[in-house]
């Protein structure tokens, strides 16, 4: 029983033993796929593509009414841009290809209770960009500017119980797996801290650290609890996590320290064309890279304004007190001026350090299965700032995807 997967199978078997068995018939099933081709060129160096990637996502779901369900999802990609690039061998090895189990769950629901166990993602929070459980739900930061949070959020083995009530809900999560943030290796596309300055074909100083370690152990588990309530048209949540500090991507290979407490709350209200969302999180004793620890506060406020014809403008301001502190204002606009087939959007992030990111996008639906998306990632600012460090890495992107499904039963 040392194998984590065997433990989870045993756990599922135990759960299945105490709950009513699914009815033999009326099981529905669905398979879905998505094939994606992604290309990107760096504006300052257009000869060399920074991405020539083919990606496939396959998922399979079964369910019996609203009671039992099971899911499995796998993602795989291959990036040919690295084969003849200036990237280091370590970068090619880490980012050239991947096959990952993104989801493997079994769930059962009775009345207001819903229990799910397996490998999956959890997101709590109210603001765009970074949700609070990203503290315990590590990110794959190799793809720094990809738009979808679920692409970069790494799924973990966990058990989660939700009691869903009309006025009050409670969710308890036990994360069984320790897995560090997956950082880009030095010399790769969006390596942090100037490591991208490595020249063509040159190996960065020191080999890439192994930063993809996973460990599943009940003793290392991280419990989390969230309460959600509604009163007078206002949604309020409060949550607490006991999470291991996670600054060092190699930390999982060593001994884990004490768990740190992360507490927070969100509130949201909407009226007419406006929606207001707020979030505040306090993380106690987060380790500093330079040694010691500090309490970190992250707080933000967002306002959405709906305009005619599906246009929406959002303004979001977030402050995080790490180190000297960082405040960022983000403005988003999206709309469907041509009725739904073409959906343009623009995102502009401005840091108070003078750095910025501009991300215009245009997505176009072709039939019911195809989607084409064109975009630009433009960076600016002093080189020692968050976005400014990528100032010479502006790029244009083109993504074409095809999706489809197969279903059995009443799915």
């Amino acid at each position, binding site marked *: 029983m040392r194998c984590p997967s065997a433990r989870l199978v045993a756990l599922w078997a135990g759960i299945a033993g105490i709950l009513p068995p699914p009815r033999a018939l*009326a099981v529905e099933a*669905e398979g*879905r796929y998505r094939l994606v081709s992604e290309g990107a060129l760096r504006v300052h160096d257009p000869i060399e593509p920074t991405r020539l990637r083919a990606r496939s996502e396959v998922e399979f*779901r079964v*369910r019996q*009414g*609203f009671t039992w*369900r099971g*899911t499995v999802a796998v993602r795989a990609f291959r990036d040919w841009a690295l084969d003849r690039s200036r990237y280091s061998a370590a970068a090619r090895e880490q980012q050239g290809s991947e096959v990952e189990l993104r989801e493997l*769950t079994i*769930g059962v*629901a009775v009345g*207001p209770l*819903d229990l*799910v166990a397996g490998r999956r*993602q*959890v*997101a*709590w929070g*109210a603001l765009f960009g970074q949700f609070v459980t990203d503290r315990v739900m590590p990110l794959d930061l190799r793809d720094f500017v990809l738009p*979808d*949070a*679920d*692409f970069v959020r790494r799924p973990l083995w966990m058990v989660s119980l*939700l009691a*869903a*009530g*009309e006025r009050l*809900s409670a969710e308890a999560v036990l994360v069984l797996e320790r897995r560090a943030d997956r950082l880009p290796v030095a010399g790769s596309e969006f390596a942090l801290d100037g490591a991208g300055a490595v020249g063509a074909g040159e190996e960065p100083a020191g080999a890439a650290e192994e930063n993809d370690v996973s460990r599943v152990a009940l003793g290392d588990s991280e419990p989390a609890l969230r309460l*959600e309530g*509604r009163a007078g048209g206002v*949604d309020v949540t409060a949550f607490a996590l006991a999470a291991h500090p996670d600054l060092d991507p190699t930390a999982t290979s060593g001994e884990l320290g004490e768990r740190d407490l992360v507490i927070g709350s969100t509130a*949201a209200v*909407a009226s*007419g*064309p*406006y*929606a207001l969302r707020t979030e505040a999180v306090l993380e106690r004793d987060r380790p500093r890279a330079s040694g010691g620890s500090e309490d970190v506060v992250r707080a933000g406020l967002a306002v*959405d304004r*709906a305009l*005619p014809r*599906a246009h*929406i403008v959002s303004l979001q301001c977030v402050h995080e007190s790490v180190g000297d502190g960082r405040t960022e204002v983000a403005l988003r606009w999206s*709309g*469907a001026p*041509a*009725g*739904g*087939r073409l959906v343009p959007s623009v995102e502009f992030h401005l840091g108070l350090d003078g750095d910025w990111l501009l991300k215009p996008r245009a997505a176009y*639906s072709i*039939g*019911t*299965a195809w*989607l084409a998306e064109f975009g630009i990632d433009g960076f600016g600012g002093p080189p020692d700032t968050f976005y400014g460090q990528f100032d010479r890495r502006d790029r244009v992107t083109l993504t074409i*995807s095809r*999706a489809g*499904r197969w*279903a059995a039963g*009443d*799915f």
Partner: protein
Amino acid sequence: MVLACAGTAGVGQVPADEHSDAADRTDAANPAASAILVAAEALRSPDMSFAASIALRSTRKEEGEFVSTYAMKSADRDRSLIVGTSPEHYRGRILLRAGRQYYLHLRSIKQPLRVAPQQGFRGDVANADIARVDYVADYQPVLAGEETIDGRTCHVLELSARASDVAYRRLRYWVEKGSSQPVKTEHYAVSGRLLKTVYYEDYRRSLGAVRPHRMRIVDGIDPTQITVIEYTELREENFPDRIFVPSYLTRLDELGTGGGGTEGKAGKGGG
């Protein structure tokens, strides 16, 4: 007394079960206008647990027609779910209406976001349009007269919002005399500008009454921009209460396209 009020309004083909709450929903301050509204809403917004398929067709002169489809699950007048089923990249997009609160779940963020009722769902369709807001609960009616539209004699109701958190501050509602069938509504912004006109069409029998199965939405600024919402396969179904709770939306997405199966035929209402 219920039938008397309803008779004044010309309730027509409202299912018997839906008469039972008409007295509770009739506004004592303006009983005649209120009874007309209650009778029309009983046809437009069934008070029962049901499922339906929705096709949303946007027509633009620049690029022709664009169709997206959704599965609808409605527990009562207060709670409904709209789940994206096509195009393929709309799957996992779920809109929940719980009373006057709206939540949008996107697979890309795996978290329900509180959204505004007036926020655009697709094209000219706002969240409140597709989720079938209950006008009786949200608006104060006043009888403004009678008009004839396409040979149909209609009551004209002026509806003003009872609270500030509804999608539209003011509506004008045309209801056919005798049948109580909704004919059209005009939706106005706070400024008084006409945002859109909605026509209720394709009356057929479903869920125990003759109801509109098509909403044609004409843009208030550019009348050539038209969006049509078509409801098909209306059927009574029971759903567990938990699927209408915002924190359950991510798990509902895990159930797959359409957000779950069938728990059984609902126990009330006609078929």
